[in-house]
Structures are given as C-alpha cells and as structure tokens.
C-alpha cells in the first residue's frame, strides 16, 4: 500500500524530505515515524498508517514532494483471524470450569481477574468482585476512560500544536509586544442589529461590524497593517486588507483569513466569516483560506474574558481582541447613570514599529466608529 504525503496542517501544498527514518525491508509498527518532512511552517515526522514491511522508497532526502505524492510503499502484515492455539509458552490461568463460565456469562475476560484462591486460583468471588469494581459495561467504559486520562501524563504533541508552538515562539522571541486595554460602548450597534432583525429579519453578527470598523481604522493607520523587514531596513505597508480570524477549534487555534476585507460589505464579511468558521470546525480549510493575512482579530467575546495580552500573528504588526460585552452603568455627560452594553478590547502591537500613542489613536478611531455607527456609514465604500 502506498504511503502518500498528506496535508499535515495549515493547508500545506508541498514538503521537503528532511530525512528518511526507515529503509526498504524494515518492519514498521503503526504510528512509527517514516520520514521527516519540512513544510514552510513546520517540521514533522510522518507516522506509518499501519504495521507492515517497507517495500520501496520513492523519495530521497532534500527532495520536495507535493501533497498527495507517494513517499513509499508498505506491505501490510495480514491481520490473522483470531485462532485458538495451545498457549504453550505462558502459564495457565487457574480457574475451575464453573468459574470460567461465570466469567464468560458476565463478559469478563478471565485473564483480567486477580485470583485470590489457593495457588492464585480464581474463585467465583474473585469474578464477582471484578464485576463489582468494573460495574456495568457502559459505566465501565467511561470509568476506564477517566482512569486512562488520570494515568496518562503525556498526550501527543499534534502537528497543529507543533505549528502553533513554533509560531508563538517565533512571534514572542521577535516582536516586543505591548497590549493596551479599552472599552467600547456597543449599545448602538446592538440596537441596529436588533432593528435589522426585527425589520427585514436579517441577522448579521456584530463582529462583522467590528471588522468593518477595523478596516476603516486600518486604512487610516496603515502602520498596523504592515510588516517589518528588519534585514531590508523597511517597514512594508501592505496595500491589501486581509483580516485573519483567530478561531478556536478542537485541535487548536487556527487563523482563516477574509481576503480584501475593505472591499466587502458588512453583509459579505458576515457571510465570509460564517463559511470560514464552518470550514475551520470541519477541518476543511484550504491553503488559500489560511494564507496572506495582514491583521488578526480575536473575537473572544462569545467565550468570555474581559482582557488579554494576545500574541501577534507573526509577521503581522498588531492584533485586536474583542472580549465579553456586558451591560454596565455608565455616567452620561449630564451626570446621569444609564445602562449601556460595554465591550472591552485588547490591542497588541509591535513596539518596534509603533508606539502607545499611535495604538491608542487607532483604537479610539475604532471606538468612535462603533459607538457612532453613522460615522461608519459615511466611511463605507
């Protein structure tokens, strides 16, 4: 059976063979590393999908292989049907035939029972004790799972996690991060959303409004939509606005990108967001979906939290996180206390290329656009 180079995460399209870890004729176990592959993002070991014997290896170290390309062939070891044989080389379990029957009837593998009888013989009581400790089959399953969880002190460092790890390390070791917090009164946006829902029944996520506002603000503060190229001595102000959406999935953080966000309507942004989110959850993101982001938004709001110090999605320049929206007492200009919906935000930026003042002016502009949606309206293309 052929072993192909598969997508080991973040939509890679090709990989370089760093080294071969097996040679033809080797017997490999399932999950045994076969080759080490380097992608543009990560180095990973490809595990054997099944146990067998390595027949032919088609690649050599240094070669670049496209996803789907055949790396090697393994002839699987045929799965033998369970067949009864005299267990000649192991000591026999001591148990009377009657006791064995009791165990069989209770779906207990006699080999799992600890014998307390003479010479370690398993008694009926031992079987019943085993039954009581393992309880009902379904409970037994969960209990085993819990037991397993408690026992296991290691979990596999998945490819996704490896990638996250590498990126986070790179970002924090390169960029001097600064984060500042602020609050946005989102009452007006929420009311607009509510009115739209009640009016035409159109449902648009508030995040789509935020993203639009971010786009407007980024146009005015292009420094946060840039990339520092230290070796060239340049700050590269990117012409396009591709907004990455930090998305929490079972396997870990992933950042799909809404491309040319400045050219999209709020409704389009909403639709795009939804489809990317779905693709992320179903592991269907393509390499395009994940590439060329210029600024990242982390919409932590639905989950919770009132503040964070996010790490920038290297090599971008900044990241804006939206936190939980809460109803809070607010003092008006007229010194009255009213209830408003307040969302806290965290803005992290690269202190090498921008300072706190610029960052605060950027978030102030964002706040302004959200608190007075009419201003946002005037900015729409």
């Amino acid at each position, binding site marked *: 059976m052929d072993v192909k180079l598969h997508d080991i995460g973040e939509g890679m399209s090709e990989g370089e063979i760093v080294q071969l870890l097996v040679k033809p004729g080797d017997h490999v176990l399932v999950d045994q590393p076969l080759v080490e592959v380097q992608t543009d993002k990560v180095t990973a070991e490809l595990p054997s999908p099944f146990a067998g014997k390595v027949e032919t290896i088609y690649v050599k170290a240094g070669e670049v292989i496209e996803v789907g390309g055949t790396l090697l062939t393994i002839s699987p070891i045929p799965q*033998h*049907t369970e067949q*009864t044989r*005299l267990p*000649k*080389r192991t000591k026999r379990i001591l*148990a009377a035939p009657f006791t064995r029957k009791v165990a069989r009837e209770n779906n207990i593998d006699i080999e799992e029972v600890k014998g307390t009888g003479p010479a370690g013989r398993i008694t009926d009581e031992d079987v019943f004790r085993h039954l009581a400790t393992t309880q009902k089959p379904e409970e037994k399953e969960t209990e085993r799972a819990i037991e397993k969880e408690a026992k296991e002190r290691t979990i596999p460092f998945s490819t996704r996690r490896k990638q996250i790890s590498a990126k986070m390390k790179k970002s924090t070791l390169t960029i001097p991060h600064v984060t500042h917090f602020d609050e946005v009164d989102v009452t007006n946006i929420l009311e607009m959303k509510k009115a739209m829902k009640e009016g035409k029944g159109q449902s648009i996520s508030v995040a789509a409004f935020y993203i639009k506002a971010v786009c407007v603000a980024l146009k005015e503060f292009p420094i946060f939509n840039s990339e520092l190229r230290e070796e060239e001595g340049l700050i590269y102000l990117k012409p396009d606005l591709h907004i990455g959406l930090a998305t929490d999935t079972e396997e870990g953080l992933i950042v799909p990108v809404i491309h040319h966000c400045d050219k999209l309507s709020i409704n389009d942004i909403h639709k795009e967001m939804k489809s990317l989110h779905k693709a992320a959850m179903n592991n269907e993101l393509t390499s395009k979906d994940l590439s060329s982001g210029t600024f990242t938004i982390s919409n932590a709001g639905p989950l919770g939290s009132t503040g964070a110090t996010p790490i920038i999605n290297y090599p971008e320049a900044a990241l804006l996180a939206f936190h939980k929206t809460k109803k809070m007492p607010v003092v008006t200009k007229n010194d009255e206390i009213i209830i408003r919906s307040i969302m806290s935000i965290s803005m992290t930026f690269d202190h090498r290329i921008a300072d706190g003042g610029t960052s605060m002016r950027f978030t102030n502009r964002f706040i302004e656009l959200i608190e007075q949606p009419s201003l946002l309206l005037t900015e729409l293309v």
Partner: protein
Amino acid sequence: MVVGEIIHEKDVVIIGAGPAGYEAAFRAAKNGRDVTLIDRFRPGGECLHSGCIPSKLLATAARKMHEKTPGITVTPAFCMDKWQEEKNSLIATMEKGLQARFHSSNIDCVKGQASFLSENRIGAEQGEKFEVWSFNHAILATGSSPITPNFLSSSSHPNIFPLEHLYTLSSLPNQLILFGSDYLTIEAASTFRALGVEVTIVTDQETILPEWDESIQRESIRQFKKQKVAFYTGVSGCLVKEREMTLVFCDAKGENVEVETEMIVYSIGRVGNSDSLRLDQVGIDIQDDGIIATSEECKTTSANIYACGDLTGGPFLAVKGIKQGKTAADHCCGIKSAFSLECLPKVIQTQTPISSVGLTEIEAKEAGYEVMTASSSMKANGYAMVTGNTEGKIVIHHDRENHVLLGFHAIGAGAVELIEKATLAIEMGARDEDFIYPYTPHPGYGEAWTDAIERTVEIKVETKVGQ
C-alpha cells in the same frame, strides 16, 4: 436455479454428520432450534465408519487375543472376515441409534453434497434431487481427509492406501509398513502386531509421537522393540518399488534401507474437507490445508457461520470436535460458550494404552514453570499384577512453586480410566495434596498415581531428616 423450487426455512443448518456435526445438531435442537443436518455419506462420520469405532473394535479384539485369565485356558483364533461382519453390525446399530436420536430431537437428517448458494442459503445435491435451505446460522463440520506422502502420490497399487482403510480389510496382511508417527500409526502398529502381522513403522520425523511427553515416547519405543516391531525414524529419500512392493529409504544414519512388504499405509497429516462447500459464496477464507480459521467460540469470519471439528484444524480428535460442536451450537443460540485446548485429554488404544492431558515436560518448561516430575512403574502396582498388565508407567509433572498439577502422562493399564481424574484435576487447578488426600480404591491402577505423587513428597521429608 430451478424454477419453483421450495426453500426450507431453518434456524440452523449443519453440514457434516460426524461427531462435531451431530453433537452440534443435538445441542441446537435441545436449545429449541429447528435443525437440518446434511451429510454426503451416512451419519456418524469418519469416527463411526472408518476411524474411532472400527480401530477401537480391532484393538479390543487384539487385546482379547492375548488376555490371560488365571485358571482359564483358551486358544484364541482371529478371523478378520468374521470381525468385519461384527464391525458392520456394530456400526449399523450405532448409526440406528443416531437416527433414533435425530428423530426424537426433531432433527432433519438429509443425505446430500451440500454447498453454499448465497450468504444465507445452502443447497444439497442428492442424485437428481436438489434441495435448498435458508438458515439463520450454519455450522460446518465436514471433517478432514488424509494427506498422501509425495513419494506415494502417483501410486495406484491396491495395497498402498491411507491408514484408515486398514479397518476395511477382509483378511490380515502378513507384513505391513506404516508410514507415519502420529497416534493413528502407533495404535494401528500395536493392534496389527498383536494380531500377528509383521509391522514396520517408518517416519521422516525424529521420533514417534513427536508431540507427546518424552516419557511416553521412550516407553512406547521400548515396548515396540520388545514386541519386535521394526521402526525407522528420521528417514529421507523414500521411494516405493511397486513391483517388488519394497519401500526404499535412507535411514537416520544415512544408510540405504530396503523393506519388502505386503502392504503400505500412511498417516502423515490431514487436510480440511472444505473444497465442495463453495465458501467463496460467504466470504470465508480457506487456508492452504483446507482448514477454516475459527475463534474460541467456533465463529468463522462470517457472522452467522460457525465451524467445528477437524475442519478447524488439529488436533484431529473426535473429543475436540464434540466439544466444538456443542460450543458452536450453544453460541449460535445466544449462550456464551467457548472452548479451550488447554486440558484436552488424548488417548491411544495401543495394546498397552496411552493417555495424556495437560503440558508435556518440554511445554511446561517453555511456559516458565519450574517442573517437578514424579513417576511410578506399573510393575509396583498390585492391581496391574493381578490383571497381568505390568507394562508401563505413570508420569506426572507439577509446579515446584505451588504444587499445581501441570501434566499427566500414562502408558499402561488404567491409563484411559485415570485420564478422566487427571483432566478434572488440571481443570480445577488441583495441587498434590488434592490427589494424595482422597481415598484411592485398593487394589487399583490409580494407586500408581498416588505412589508417584507421594514419592516426591517423601523426598522432601527425607532431605529434612538428613540435615
């Protein structure tokens, strides 16, 4: 398929009416199932018609020939022709017994060559009639057939045939060569020698009874030598000169040997009778040797199809087939059954009977036990002296660590009777005091066992006194 054919709907359809098949049928019927049993020949299988029953009947006759009873003088004479009549009559009686049980258990026993038509249909051809059954569960018990040694494969000599045909002869040969080393060979050699035939055993194996305890191999060889049975082990380059009826081979020392004989029979292994079943229709794989792989519940790889007996591989013993037949029938009726080969008792009805259960010394050591062996000669057994059967011995292996009985091997009078106690003892995980303490009938063959065990215990005491 024939237009308008009638399909019989059955819970359980069993193919093969040997011990595994008919025991499966009885058990399934007892469990309330509607059962059809199909066999290409007659009920009883190899066991009744050419194996266990005929061979035991001839072994019994041979034994009686030599039986000495104090005060009784007889000059026995054996007539094979007469024996055949009695054999056929016995088989007919036993077959009738089976038929009567089928009838009273509402088992439909059909003669025909059965094969699978589809996943849940079996057809059987019988002359011009073709019948079809649909089933919920099928149990396969079609048995096995002897393998012909390569050097005999092209032979068509009427006096060269598989060992079991010996029991269909109408007269005894003067000389007989048995090619093989298994229990069938040893039993036939012993029986025919006792009936006055000049017997030669030839095998390419290192020893006779290769899978048996060494103590049994040694004692068996000693007895054969005493009976003037010639034997050659570890031979190679066999060929047969048919005109002179001479077997030519190279013995273990590398010297050429020629043995002239009247008849050559062989028993070197068996293959499963799976060819005609059309197992491809149900997706069950057949191994090279015709064997079908099964689980400890006798399940095949097809969910509702079971296999039992010789068809599932060795040891090719009815005792195993019977257990598997019951296991398969119970399991397909929803009873959680299983079988194990761990405590399978094996018996050879040689003139001095042989029996064995549990581990041999080699197997026990391989399994990691510290083996303690005790043995007792039948010469010292009072009852053996009374009956005039003082040949042989009892050998038992137990675990030095916890005194658990691991294996029992007997060659001598009483071996067949005592194996039952040994089988139960090993199943129960019995330890030495468990056999020493209970009363042993006196005089009785069983005392040899008690003697053997007690001897090992006594050694311990003596050592202590000595210190």
